């Protein structure tokens, strides 16, 4: 395992974690909005 490989590995992991977090955050907002609309 070279340091370059490990750095690239971590960079990809981090980027994927950020996108996943953003998608989950968007889902939380969407589910909240759906719940509010359905209650009315």
């Amino acid at each position: 395992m070279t340091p370059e490989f490990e750095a690239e590995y971590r960079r990809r992991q981090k980027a994927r974690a950020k996108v996943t977090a953003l998608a989950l955050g968007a889902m939380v907002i969407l589910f909240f909005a759906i719940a509010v609309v359905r209650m009315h």
Partner: protein
Amino acid sequence: MSSLTVAQPLPAEWRDFLALTKPRVMTLVVFTGLCGMLAAPVHIHPVIGFTAILCIALGAGACGALNMWYEADLDAQMKRTARRPLPAGRMDRQAALHFGVGLGVFSVLLMGLAVNLLSAAILAASILFYVVIYTVWLKRRTPQNIVIGGAAGAFPALIGWAAACGRLDLLPVLMFFMVFLWTPPHFWALALFVETDYAAAGVPMMPVVAGARTTRIQVFAYALPMAVVAVLPWGLKLTGAIYGLTALILSLVFVGLAVQVGLSKQGDQALMKPERRLFRFSILYLFVLFGALVADRMLLV
């Protein structure tokens, strides 16, 4: 850190997962779904409407991912698709399968819980149709594969309408058949003048299997009923004159171009002008036709 001491491939980038969803195909699917929803005579809450369109997009993404998962071997043999995440070796096949199945199940569940059961059922049927009937079963077995694929692409109009109304009527069924009958002339016009390597990959595309002459006749054979179905909503008084006249003029031009293709005997792909004209016009045709339908229905309702 110990997990990194064993030799292992790099994890796929998030862009590779996005590429699995075929974003360009998704735009047409979202457009027809949105038109189906906006043409419906029922007002849908913007949040629910957005959720329905999101589910249609995610369902289309699932289809794309599962298609790439199943066809990784085929994609590797063709220039156009060899750079996709799986044949290029940027992603594990299992990850693509999990991503596709997860996306598909999530989109259907969300549609069912947030919108309604009918739209969820049609979405599930369209995903299964595209993956099982088209990709796995018929794509490599028949030169009519594009016709079957066209049916899968025609579902979103039905889903959009069902999301708004909770039921189906004659108009969304006609919209389904418009896209269904539009797909073969659109795709075969392209297949006639573009050099493809489907034959080398073992996919029986019409121009390769049946020849240019038969393909040209089939282009016309599908364009004619497509034009009739496009004008039918006006004839049945489901729309007004805005849509009716637009559909009539556009369809006459489409059939005229299809006749030119049908009569053409050009064998050199570089000189196939009628085919190029029909392909370019077919894109405009569907967008303007559906746009006029929505505008007309909004004024009518």
